[in-house]
């Protein structure tokens, strides 16, 4: 019993993490307070990091936790605490609830059925021991250097746009 459990520990943990990530994602729709929604999203992201680690893509697991949880969600939590707008009276959902649910069911049903029917088998065998960051880095710098530079341009544009937004808000305060 214990031996069988230990032999299948990887798939067991994968299923457990997937279930917990799904529960966190569903809680995001149901919960009312933005802070609780943020906590549900953080738990989903951490479980996704666990899934990436189990798949053998360790550096993406690390970056998932570092960038998403450590940077993006901490920023989001700060903003929620900074705004501190208490709105527990109004309705939780907008008037688009019924079309939204219909679209959700249609999208999930269509793609889910096509996944359930089976995927084409890949011709290439899986690499032993997962990815190494060395292989990834060599591919990244040799083959995708242009995209890498374009992301830096995108980040500069984002910084300039954020500064422009701050300028607009200052002008709005003065005028």
């Amino acid at each position: 019993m214990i031996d069988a459990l230990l032999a299948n520990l990887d798939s067991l943990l994968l299923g457990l993490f997937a279930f917990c990530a799904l529960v966190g994602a569903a809680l995001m729709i149901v919960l009312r307070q933005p802070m609780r929604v943020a906590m549900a999203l953080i738990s989903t992201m951490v479980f996704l990091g666990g899934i990436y680690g189990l798949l053998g893509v360790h550096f993406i697991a690390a970056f998932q936790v570092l960038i998403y949880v450590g940077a993006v969600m901490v920023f989001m939590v700060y903003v929620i605490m900074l705004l501190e707008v208490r709105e527990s009276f109004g309705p939780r959902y907008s008037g688009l609830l019924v079309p939204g649910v219909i679209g959700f069911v249609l999208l999930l049903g269509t793609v889910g059925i096509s996944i359930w029917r089976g995927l084409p088998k890949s011709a290439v065998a899986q690499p032993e021991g997962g990815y190494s960051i060395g292989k990834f880095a060599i591919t990244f710098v040799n083959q995708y250097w242009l995209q890498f530079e374009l992301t830096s341009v995108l980040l500069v544009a984002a910084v300039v746009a954020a500064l422009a937004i701050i300028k607009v808000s200052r002008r709005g305060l003065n005028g």
Partner: protein
Amino acid sequence: MDKTQMLLGLAVAMFSLGLLGVIVRRNVLVMLMCMELMLNGVNLSLVTFAQQTATTTGAVLVFLVFVVATAEIALAIPIVLLLVRDKRTLDLDAYTDLKG
């Protein structure tokens, strides 16, 4: 059901739940977080396909998605702050007079 199918099903479920949240929720910050959930679903599918086909292209795309998500949040949060300072609420229905 094998591992790839389960992970792709999870990715689709997360993307659909994020889309549902963007459509039905009224709080602007919650909508932003649901967009992050959609990006996470896409990331999971990219990693799963990259794992299945044993290429590094998926991992490169995941990195680009990370960058785009960070830039998106860095731009969206100041806009939300400005809107809240102007309207004193996070409710989306108060922003219906926005034009453009």
